[in-house]
């Protein structure tokens, strides 16, 4: 915890140093960012997608932060103080968290421990009548959250929780104002958010512009930009031209083939980030013939993922080892085999299956995942090469993608907590988004033994034991194959020269002083 204290002290010192006169605030630049699409609001739970996290990262603070900026590639995994200054385990199932007392919400209200208790309490996150339905995915182990004194909150878990502090680094790790939230309701809060983050919402025109202005009372010091403006420019050519013309300071979602255009311009460069989110083909095991395990295995072995990554990302991208991610740090199982391309084996597996050449429906949401339509066409051809017929259906939205009748659908797995439990718990845990019968992506019914292993993974404290459980989980998934991991997502940012900013290995764009400086 010494490191934690050091960082807290640094942040405090920085806050003091940046309490500068009004004159200095006027000199701060306005940063304009061209994005392909804007989120439909700002509530953390309702805007958990890439477009949402890109903006909400500036509006809210997490209780405990993941120090992405410490990693060379924006993939640091250390946990550092944010709204919490310190945390300690006081018994096997109890944690005490010290809270900052100098935090002010955007509306001028001081943040209190009551706000923290509400943000992670049963009413909002994990109770049966919770407001954030997805809350149990991150805080399903919580049993009680109570206020001890003016700067301490106690958390009680149902079982030992080895990843307790890391849970708050998830997209739902943000602190929201209790009174304001309850008074207005989630939908109104979504359009008029109040957070503790370095920038507050000043203007929102759906599909056009989001203007955030500096929250000058920010506990972490004066934000480095006077304003952050997100402008929706759907056409990539428009975004690139805007960047090269100086109309925009940064742009997102550039295709790899445009990287050289920007790098050779002399006015901007591209920074690429491998994102801790893998693109997958989720297999609907309930729709015959996809209930045949051999068919699902054949689908996996028929795909040449190296060729896809080479063709579409010039080999810059990373192929995940199923749920075994490099971002799990020391727990990443580097020696676990990851060879999935063997057309002969695919044909053999197909011969063992009951598949009779039926058309399999593969649904994709139009334009949602970069390059996914092209990838799907390659997959279609590679599957056809081994004798599997697939029809692509492009749909407008996820509700239509997951409507009945699909055999497989485009989906993704995001490592939202830097631990081996993620994203497996979110996806195939008891409350997972593909195992919960009432979830749109419900597509696999794991055995009770498998679900028990997931619970063990979440509650086992002994490191060696956890790894052994993790290996068992991966072995079962190898056999059952409820999904096909394809490649990790990549995000390419165009950045005007003179802006020092590091992209992270996940969707949030961080414009706090430690990650942004502008000449």
């Amino acid at each position: 915890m010494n490191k934690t204290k050091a960082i807290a002290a640094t942040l405090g010192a920085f806050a003091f140093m940046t309490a500068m006169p009004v004159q200095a605030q006027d000199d701060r630049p306005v940063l304009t960012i061209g994005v392909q699409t804007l989120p439909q609001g700002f509530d953390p739970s309702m805007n958990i997608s890439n477009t949402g996290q890109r903006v909400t990262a500036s509006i809210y603070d997490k209780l405990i932060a993941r120090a992405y900026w410490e990693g060379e590639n924006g993939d640091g995994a250390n946990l550092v103080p944010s709204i919490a200054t310190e945390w300690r385990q006081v018994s096997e199932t109890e944690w005490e968290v010290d809270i900052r007392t100098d935090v002010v919400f955007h509306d001028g209200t001081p943040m209190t421990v009551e706000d923290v208790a509400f943000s992670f309490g049963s009413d909002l996150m994990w109770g049966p009548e919770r407001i954030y339905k997805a809350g149990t995915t991150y805080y399903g182990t919580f049993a009680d959250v109570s206020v001890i004194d003016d700067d301490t909150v106690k958390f009680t878990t149902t079982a030992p929780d080895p990843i307790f502090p890391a849970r708050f680094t998830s997209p739902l790790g943000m602190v929201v104002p209790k009174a304001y939230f309850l008074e207005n309701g989630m939908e109104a809060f979504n359009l008029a958010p109040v957070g503790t983050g370095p920038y507050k919402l000043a203007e929102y025109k759906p599909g056009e512009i989001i203007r955030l202005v500096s929250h000058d009372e920010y506990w972490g010091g004066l934000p480095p930009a006077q304003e952050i403006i997100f402008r929706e420019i759907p056409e990539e050519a428009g975004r690139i031209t805007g960047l090269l013309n100086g109309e925009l300071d940064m742009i997102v979602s550039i295709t790899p083939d445009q990287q050289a255009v920007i790098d050779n311009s002399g006015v901007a460069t591209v920074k690429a980030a491998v994102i801790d989110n893998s693109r997958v083909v989720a297999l609907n095991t309930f729709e015959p013939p996809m209930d045949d395990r051999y068919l699902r295995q054949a689908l996996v072995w028929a795909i040449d993922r190296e060729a896809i990554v080479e063709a579409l990302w010039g080999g810059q991208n990373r192929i995940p080892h199923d749920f075994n991610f490099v971002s799990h740090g020391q727990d990443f199982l580097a020696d676990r085999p990851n060879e999935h391309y063997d057309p002969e084996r695919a044909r053999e597996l197909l011969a063992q299956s009951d598949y009779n050449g039926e058309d399999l429906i593969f649904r994709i949401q139009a334009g949602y995942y970069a390059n996914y339509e092209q990838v799907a066409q390659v997959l279609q051809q590679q599957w056809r090469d081994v004798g599997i017929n697939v029809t692509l259906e492009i749909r407008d939205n996820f509700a239509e993608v997951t409507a009945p009748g699909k055999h497989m659908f485009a989906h993704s797995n995001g490592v939202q907590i830097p631990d081996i439990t993620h994203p497996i718990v979110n996806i195939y845990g008891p409350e997972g988004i593909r195992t919960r019968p009432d979830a749109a992506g419900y597509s696999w019914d794991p055995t009770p033994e498998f679900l028990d292993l997931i619970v063990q993974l979440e509650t086992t404290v002994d490191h060696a034991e956890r790894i052994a459980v993790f290996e068992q989980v991966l072995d079962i998934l190898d056999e059952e194959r409820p999904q096909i991991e394809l490649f990790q997502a990549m995000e390419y940012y165009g950045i005007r020269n003179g802006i020092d900013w590091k992209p992270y290995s996940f969707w949030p764009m961080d414009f706090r002083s430690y990650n942004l400086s502008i000449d």
Partner: protein
Amino acid sequence: MFGSFFLRAARMLATLFVVAVAVFIMMRFSGDPVSVLAGPDATPEQIAELSARWGYDRPIPEQFITYMTGIMSGDFGLSVRSYTPAAEVFLERVPATLLLGLTSLACAVLIGMPLGIVAAVNQHSAYDRFVMGLSVLGFAMPNFFLGILLILLFSLHLHLLPSFGSGSWQHLVMPTATLALSSAGAIARFARSCMLDVLNQPYIASARARGIKGLRRTVIHALPNASIPIVTILGLRFGDLIAGAIIVETVFAWPGVGRLLAASVASRDLAVVQVIVLSTALTMIIANLAVDLLYGVLDPRVRRSAQ
């Protein structure tokens, strides 16, 4: 005269009713708005709650009556994206699209008409062939392609114009040019054809025989008669400009009705889609009515028959 007016008004209302019914049917049966609104992780209880709140749980006939009653009282419901009245969301975008559409139409007429008329007067000349070739290129080139070409030329290479957004006359130039060029091509071809018809009429030969000079003969004697069918196509082009705005506004990030419509369809924002489609239909009907009235002004025969 009054009988004719009431007949037109009755036709207008009948057309609007048919459009309103078509919009209702298409939007109700083209995807579930509540599932989109609720998001992928919503529980059945949440979906049911949202359905009830937005009235999608009621029987279709009841929804239809509510919908039609709302339209007649000017209440189109709330936008599910912004939770504000759909009409307000729409009206906020109207000025930008009107500015773009009318400027484009004016430019298209100012470019297309003279080019077509001069081509007709100089039929089979090199100029005629050049203008007709250019007009084919103009209306055959897709808007999104022309728009990107203009961005690359005028923004990226020449640094003369902003590549996106609105707020100044410079922002207006490229979207206007993109929309106007394709319309100008169509207008030029049509103007040439109408002018040729009129120039071959006996009364023009008679004017020539009476020694009336070329420019006076063309402008005073031929143009008014040639204008009548051209006015018809202008009414139709106005509709095309609104349709074209969906693409052009997306390419140039122009904050108009076109982009709003595309985004609202994708997110199944039914109230906003309804107000846009109905308003566009109304605009088209009014444009056609204006064309009919202009006929009367331009052609005495129409005036007399109406009387």
